[in-house]
């Protein structure tokens, strides 16, 4: 269910793959914002009890918005700009990169 809308016209769209599905998202847009407008709210499952989680702070602090991007795990989608051809996997099983 879409919970967000965009109030300005989109300048240019690029193709992105999200969970294996092709999507057209605004180039350069904050990825988390683009995904929220695209109807996605559940970005990951929590590590211990597997509850659904989504972005909270949208300023890079909370790490609740992480996804696997182009093979790199635990990337903050609220700190990532939409790029043509990027591959995003939400709810990706977390593997510590630290």
């Amino acid at each position: 269910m879409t919970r967000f809308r965009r109030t300005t016209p989109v300048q240019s769209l690029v193709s992105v793959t999200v969970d294996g599905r092709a999507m057209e998202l605004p180039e350069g847009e904050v990825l988390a914002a683009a995904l929220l407008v695209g109807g996605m709210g559940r970005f990951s499952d929590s590590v211990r009890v597997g509850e659904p989680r989504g972005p909270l702070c949208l300023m890079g602090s909370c790490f609740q918005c992480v996804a696997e991007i182009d093979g790199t795990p635990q990337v903050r989608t609220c700190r990532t700009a939409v790029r043509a051809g990027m591959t995003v996997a939400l709810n990706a099983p977390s593997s510590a990169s630290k």
Partner: protein
Amino acid sequence: MNTAAPVVIVGAGPAGATAALSLAEAGISSVLLDDNGAAGGQVWRTGAADLGPPLAYTDARGDELRRDLKRHGDLIDHRTGHEVVGLFPDLRLWVLEGGETVTSLHPKAIVVATGALEVFAPVPGWTRPGVYGLGGLQALMKTSRVVPDGPVVLGGAGPLLRLVAAQLASFGAEIAAVVDAAPWPSSGQVLRLASQPGLLAKGLAFEWGLLRRGIPVHRGSAIVEVAGDEEADSVLVAPVDENWRPVDGPRRRLEARVVGLGYGVRSNVELTRLAGCEHTFSASRGGWHATRNRDMETTVENLFLAGDGGGIGGVEVALAEGVIAAASVSERLGQGDRLKTKAAKARGRMVDLVRFQDALADWSGVRPGILAGSTEDTIICRCEDVTRGEIAAAVAAGYTDIGPVKMNTRAGMGLCQGRTCTPALQAIMASETGRPLAEAGLPTSRAPLRPVPLKALAQLPLDEAVE
């Protein structure tokens, strides 16, 4: 790797950017690091694209600041997308770029201007998707002009609560209710707030923005539960007492597709903690922050601190402190006292501004009952799924200091390193041990502050990589 820069400033918000601009005025070059794509910090955050008309209730100073930084590009090396993930007592910094490479800097002086973080009060269901920080909802507007679709309920306390409500409403978002833990300010508080007529007028403008649109404001109330199937679809609102503890009285359930939560802001202390600065607790400045002398220097020599990262003062204080810090750095580097007059003026402005901040905190600052809406099963640490009951059990088992409680429960040990749960953890420690909040302790931070690929750390000189 550039190790030659004499001054590094961390954070390009009002405080850090002003410090860089003031130094440039005195002919001193600096490296200005910020993790965002553009300068402006929280208050003047902006996006990458042309966003059309400006956001309601903002001024043009953010755009001016960005223009000025560009104009002084010869002296100010503003590096966007650069996140500082390490700061050591000898003034070495680790800088993460693009999430991939870590470089090391070793300047003569550092100004930390990393601002504030939002304070969350966990309640049952607050982990559901559809619940955002007030600052998060605001960031979506600021960077992307994206707003909630469907009824929104905002809950918390402080100026950001009504500012975000008024800004969202100006985009036509459907604000079902604003739930404010604080009551109306008392006449004494209003009088003290009136010492800064300009700032009080701003606050009243937000209030009027809500009133004019008929948006209900439930004062002395809090969101005590977020319900929904998987994602949020309603909230439960209960009356609270003056310490923000839920009390008997009519509770109401409100439909909400999007929920905004935020109980004010606190200093982001992760870098000053890493550097080994002394910290202090001050209720009127948002809790814990590093101590500074009047020149904005911390207890670590040549490590200066300006803006909300050194105690909450708001944007005007941040601007003044940026000037003062720059003047101190200039003198310390032996570059003369060209900024002395400017710094003296800034000091003069601060006296009244700090008084205003005290009144603001008196009215809407965090109260001891902030965690009273949570239950045994409420998740406090979202990264590691640690509940309030588990934390209380650790305290009951004899772990009465925050460090051992973290190790024992893993609360605050996850991906975000406690940036989200620390205030809640401290509130639980205080209530379980019967100590005041000021004695609940401040957790340590560890470098690197963000997940960093091992191969990136391996690029550092050997003696640094083993930190």
